[in-house]
């Protein structure tokens, strides 16, 4: 037997997002507000989606609540949007916990609609860690099916305060994951454009959440258009821990309900 000891390699990483933290959240709020104000005077269509997510999982101390707002402004084939998510800590204190911006270009091939989208999402995961996701995806919209494929780059970082408090070396503050796969396969009972619908999907993403592809989310939901300008949405999601070579295990669930306003 020959034994070859190897010298361990140390992966050094750069600290790219940890300095932005709190001010970025404030900027996010301002962008959403500005989008809304500008949308009142622009010729394009705009929409505001507000919803609340309740959930429970293996690592949450109990039921959690995440209110969110996402503003989209559509100008011809282009759509730009921004969103914020907050967290109701112990049901008595709101904390801003997420911010997103995105841009989309839609086009059609024959009768099939497509969209290409780029996004950036910053999310506070805990009081000492936050993550940034940047990526792109392509969406194909059929009458009853909606399919999304894309990729994201994740950077998990310690906050500046944590780096100082725990004396973290500057090469150990960030951790990067490149080319995570994004997917969503959704089947709708009624065709797109129907006043109501029921949808079943499997995905690894949500507005402010990016799982690895091996941790899928099963989602069942629906919507009802109560007027020309207002739509009510609701969904329930089941989160699984592990798939492929790991047996399916329960991780958590979420309930989501909200209203979409079209201006």
């Amino acid at each position, binding site marked *: *037997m*020959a*034994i*070859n*000891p*190897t*010298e*361990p*390699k*140390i*992966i050094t990483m750069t600290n790219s997002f940890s300095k932005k933290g709190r001010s970025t959240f404030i900027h996010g709020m301002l962008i959403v507000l500005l989008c809304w104000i500008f949308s009142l005077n622009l010729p394009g269509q705009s929409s505001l989606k507000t919803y609340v997510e309740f959930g429970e*999982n*293996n*690592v949450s101390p109990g039921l959690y609540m995440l209110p969110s707002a996402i503003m989209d402004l559509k100008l011809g084939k282009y759509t730009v949007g921004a969103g914020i998510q907050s967290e109701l800590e112990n049901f008595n204190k709101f904390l801003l916990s997420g911010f997103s911006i995105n841009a989309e270009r839609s086009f059609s091939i024959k009768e099939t609609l497509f969209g290409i989208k780029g996004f950036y999402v910053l999310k506070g*995961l*805990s*009081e*000492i*860690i936050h*993550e940034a996701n940047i990526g792109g995806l392509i969406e194909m919209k059929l009458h*009853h099916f909606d399919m999304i494929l894309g990729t994201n780059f994740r950077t*998990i970082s*310690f906050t500046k305060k*944590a780096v100082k408090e*725990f*004396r*973290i070396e500057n*090469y*150990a*503050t960030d*951790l990067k*994951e490149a*080319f995570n796969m994004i997917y969503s396969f959704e*089947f709708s*009972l*009624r065709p797109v454009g129907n006043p109501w619908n*029921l949808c*079943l999907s*499997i995905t690894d993403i949500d507005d402010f*959440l*990016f799982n*690895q*592809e*091996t*941790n899928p989310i*099963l989602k069942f939901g629906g919507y009802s258009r109560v007027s020309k300008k207002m739509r009510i949405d609701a969904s329930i999601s*089941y*989160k699984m*821990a*592990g*798939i*492929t*070579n*790991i*047996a*399916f*295990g*329960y*991780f*958590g669930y979420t309930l989501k309900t909200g209203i979409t306003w079209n201006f």
Partner: protein
Amino acid sequence: MELLKYNRLSFLVAAVIIFAGCSKDDSYFSLNQSVDSRVEQSFGWNDKHPATEIVVNSDDYKIFCMSDSHVGTTVNLDKFFNAAEKSGASAVVMAGDLCSGRESDYEVLNKHLPSGDSIPIFKVAGNHDLHYEGWSQFFTRFGSSTYMFTVKTPSGSDLFICLDTSEGTLGKVQLSWLSNILNNQRQNYRHCIVVTHNNFFRVKQAESTNPLIEEITVLVELFTKNHVDMLISGHDHRSDDRLFGVTRYIVMDPLEDSSGNPGYFVLRAADGNLEYRFVTITN
């Protein structure tokens, strides 16, 4: 109307296919117990078998670690134990995916383990160990997969925490136990090393089954606040070494005979410092 009927049928078929994935049967992917009930079983075993304390007379000791032997065959496993015994290792840690989960493979594995008198062996379950209702085999032969052991040297004691990540999540019961140990006992020890089968961070593209980001966040925060020195894991079949925060996250090469890069990991505590090396096995 016909089209609507067709769509409703498709919807039902899609629902059945997707949710069928959650069913529990006797197949390769079957789990006859949740992680919480396995952990409760481990705690029952721990009540009857108090945590092992290894006493070494020197401030320099070694722990040999391996994972992913996937027995079947045992050529590299035998080499590993020979090397551990020759070097005078104080203990051996086996970090999961020890076999395929079949009873016959558990029997082969058991035959190739040194006796507990010659060297203490600490085992945790991996995802493959649970296949084919393998947990009952693991538990009957080896006992708990959630426990701690300590190594006492003349100058201080080190804490080793072994966790069951074979289902891709620690579950509520095990996480609560881990938090309690780290928050209340960590300060009594010099070094703290956690052993899991699952690695936390992706090594390979599109194949890893790492814990969900929500769980990783909680664990990294817990490790950072309680100064966990090292996490030793396997699962991805490719060695990796990264420092994130104050914790070094180690992924070991597999010990499996058919692997193109078989290897193991040696941890050494010398004069109060932790040293380590990856060892590659070549024929």
